[in-house]
């Protein structure tokens, strides 16, 4: 039941947003705030760690897509890391798994992003 979001930045300036719990119409505004904070702090790319997320609804999708749009406007990218089957299911059903850069872990994303 517990929900939490936290953020930090890697050496290369990429922001990492880590979410635990269910992302829905109630909790997604908190994800949005932290993503915006990271952008405002200068990150052009973000890694969203979904390894501890079991549930993601369209409110969460909307926020991820808004983030992707903003990132790409500035030459950046959004990496979705460690998606569990249920989250993958939502992304697949909406075709968004082909829109985001899907990675298995935060470290893989850091590697891919290079000096983002």
């Amino acid at each position, binding site marked *: 039941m517990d929900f939490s979001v936290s953020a930090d930045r890697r050496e290369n300036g990429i922001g990492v947003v880590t979410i635990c719990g269910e992302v*829905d*119409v109630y909790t997604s505004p908190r994800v949005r705030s932290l993503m915006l904070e990271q952008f405002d702090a200068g990150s052009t790319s973000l890694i969203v760690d979904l390894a501890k997320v079991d*549930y993601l*609804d*369209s*409110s969460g999708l*909307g926020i991820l897509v808004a983030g992707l*749009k903003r990132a790409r406007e500035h030459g950046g990218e959004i990496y979705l890391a460690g998606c569990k089957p249920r989250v993958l299911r939502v992304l697949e*059903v*909406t075709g968004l798994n082909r829109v985001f850069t899907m990675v298995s872990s935060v470290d893989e994303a850091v590697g891919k992003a290079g000096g983002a």
Partner: protein
Amino acid sequence: MLVTSPVVELRAPCHAEYVSVVRLAVLGLCGRAPLSYDEVEDLRLAVGEGCASSVQRAAEAGMDDARLTLRATVDESLIVLEIEDDVPVPPAPEPLEQAVMDVDFNDQQFRVSLMQLLVDEVNIEGLPGGGQCIRLTKHCVASDGQ
């Protein structure tokens, strides 16, 4: 369409924080139906979308006292889940202020499409006294998709 009377009814404030309660109840209700884990989770997601749709309409209407009702009829072969609210439906769809994105994920139509991908049937109707009812139908017999 249905003759059986609703067996379980859950009423809650039409606020974002109660959607998870409704989803948990769906888990409890469908957990013993002849459905796979993924089918139950799909239903839970579909109901979550239906509730989010009501919650969003209530917020847009500034209706703090709106109520949300889940009505569930679950039997061996058929699950019908109705999500009802008392938020007046605006006469015509309001123009979206943002047409930049291909899809607006908070758009009610997107939620409906998602529900349609997750269950067998989605019916939406306005209620006589105002408000709206989304009816989700899922057939339990395997590979009987329609």
